[in-house]
């Protein structure tokens, strides 16, 4: 067979006609101790039982060290998830929630800033106008539908940054539950409005006084009959 010449392609190594050298690996020694597997079996069981009794004792006596602190030490840390959870950092971005005003109306004004900023394009909002008689009618809108596809979300937090109304937050402290169908990851307005912050409160960071809020000083003058 003619020796193949490889052109100028730097990624191709020139072929070799001889077979690569074979590496010979020695068999492990089969001592009597290994052949009679029982001693090894009991030694393994001893390790398992040592941890079993230690964990049970610590659990019963409430002596289990903090898994976070323990994880800083050498060795392997186990935590009994889901009974035991690593505490998340303060800045952890959990599932989204929609914040409410005092009168339980959504703080969101359907400005679409969050869905514009979202790199995963997973927020879908349809704007609607408030009902006749509502103090906010004609003045601002609200989200008729507000949907987040949590499965597409990359948890970047851009939506929270973009929102000018403190209406969307990722401070629930929750992470997505492992559902088994895509449908269940589509979070709608009602669900998003039910969540609270991780401390269970609905306190707002938005200091704005809006028409309809009790803090709003009201209009200086009505433009009534001329």
């Amino acid at each position, binding site marked *: 067979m003619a020796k193949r010449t490889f052109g100028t392609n730097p990624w191709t190594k020139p072929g070799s006609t001889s077979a690569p050298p074979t590496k010979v690996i020695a068999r492990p020694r089969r001592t009597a101790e290994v052949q009679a597997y029982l001693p090894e079996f009991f030694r393994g069981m001893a390790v398992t039982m040592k941890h079993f009794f230690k964990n049970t004792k610590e659990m019963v006596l409430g002596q289990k060290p903090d898994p976070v602190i323990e994880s800083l030490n050498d060795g392997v840390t186990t935590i009994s998830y889901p009974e035991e959870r690593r505490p998340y950092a303060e800045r952890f971005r959990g599932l989204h929630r929609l914040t409410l005003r005092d009168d339980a109306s959504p703080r969101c*004004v*359907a*400005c*679409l*800033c969050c869905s*514009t900023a979202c790199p995963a394009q997973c927020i879908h909002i349809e*704007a*609607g*106008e408030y009902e006749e008689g509502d103090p906010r*009618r*004609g*003045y*601002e*809108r609200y989200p008729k539908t507000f949907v987040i596809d949590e499965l597409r979300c990359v948890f970047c937090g851009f939506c929270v940054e973009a929102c*000018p*109304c403190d209406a969307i937050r990722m401070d629930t402290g929750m992470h997505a539950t492992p559902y088994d169908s895509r449908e269940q990851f589509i979070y709608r307005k009602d669900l998003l409005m039910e969540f609270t912050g991780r401390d269970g409160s609905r306190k707002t960071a938005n200091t*704005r*006084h809006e*028409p309809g809020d009790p803090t*709003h*000083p*009201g*209009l*200086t*003058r*009505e*433009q009534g009959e*001329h």
Partner: protein
Amino acid sequence: MATIKIDGREIPFEQGDTIIRAAHRAGIDIPHYCWHPGLSVAANCRMCLVEVLPPPGRPAMQLDILRWDPEKKDYVPARKPKLVPSCQQACAPGMEVLSDTSDHVEEARGAVQELLLLNHPVDCPICDQAGECRLQDYWLEHQRSGKRMRQEIVHKPKATPFGPTIIYDAERCIICTRCVRFTAEVAKDPVLSVRERGNLNEIVVSPGRQLDHNYTLMTEHVCPVGALTSIDFRFKARVWFLRSARAICQGCATGCNAYLDYDPRTNTPHRYRPRDNMEVNKYWMCDEGMLSYKRAVEGRLSMALVGGEDAGVDDALAAAKEQLAGHGDDPGRVAIVLSATHSNEDNFALLTLAKTFIGAKDLYVSGKPLGQGDDILMSADKNSNTRGVMALAGASSPKPFAELIDAIHAGKYAYVIALGAELEVDAQEAKNALSKLKGVVTIAAHEGPLVSAAHIALPACTWAETDGTYVNRQGIAQRSERALLPRGEARPGWELVARLGRALGYAMSWKTLAEVRRALSPDETTGVPRDAAERALVQKPEVSA
């Protein structure tokens, strides 16, 4: 020509120009709110302040001021030059103006911004002007700092209806009086005025009146901020999602230049915005025209119709061939109906089919009936291309549709091939007459009397779905750009004519718009002097104010 210098750049000006107008024409932007090239000068916003250097050998006009000295921790007396509003200051030969290069001007612009935003609520997320608001833009360019006032803002009426089309928000208004001047000067119906002074002022409608003339939506468009919003557009779309196509309004024969703003994601048009064209509509459009963007999607014919039933275009063409069988034996029995609402390209295609291939002699024209007109913009003729059709047909000038009905009753015709859906005559009368014929084929974009009377109707694209040329009442040929994708099975009118011609066995080879346009030279077929036509075709919109 006499010149002035702005920031060291020499620009020419015409007699009577103000500094801002000369700068605007030369493409230099001096920030402004209350100045509008089409309105009188109010000079009340003070955003356009510039420093005019004194003539050589003369001292500058200076003002005594107190300036904060951070070292002495006290105000110290200082002097600064007196700035002038460039929208009001007339140019004089050799004048030297400092705009962006003067620290005093920079400082003044930031201060004017701060003043304007003192009582302005930060409604931007809910404000429909967000994304195209002067306050936002200039805040970023000239201020970028917070305001120092810590008090609650002055609260003024919000969401006040001014009339059937406009909602006013007094808190967002910066009292530039553009809307007041527009209604008085352009719409010639001075219903708006300012009441109160200082930070309590607001715009009001005259007692007992509403803002309800024919140009109310323009007040929304001239408002540089979100104080006036159009009921039709508010809360419907965010402007940063919209794309604009350079369209020609189809509301009447004036052919106003407009931007058709549409959402490409949903293929929906959202509004018309006037596009500056000094020869046609200056900066304005009428309400009727502004709202006529809806016709791009409303009342559409999106499927072919055969005997009133939905059908595919191919099936309809086959049926048309059957219906029109025998038309070649006596071309004199074929009547052609051109449309004053379709583009030159569509009409030209039908004209070519009629004259060159079929040999039909008689031309008629359909269109919308006459309507209200005025001496500002609106024409009584509500068809966008009447002049174009007349010019295309040339010597064999088309007759009105009413004469076709008489001729049908006299038994003159057996076949009609028509463009357009609109009729200026009674729909029932037309239907009775057309039902006597052996074959009626209509190519139209909308449902209408001519479509319901047809045996076979083919779905054409509207002006928004295809490029087209329209000749306005002054004889200026103007091109309209495609914005939307065709709905349903709609195809451009000229293409359907060509396919109909091919189905009838004629060699109409046009496949692209460019081929049609090449055949349709502006010189010979539109009757428009070439320079005027081409000027309109290539005309660049002026920088919008």
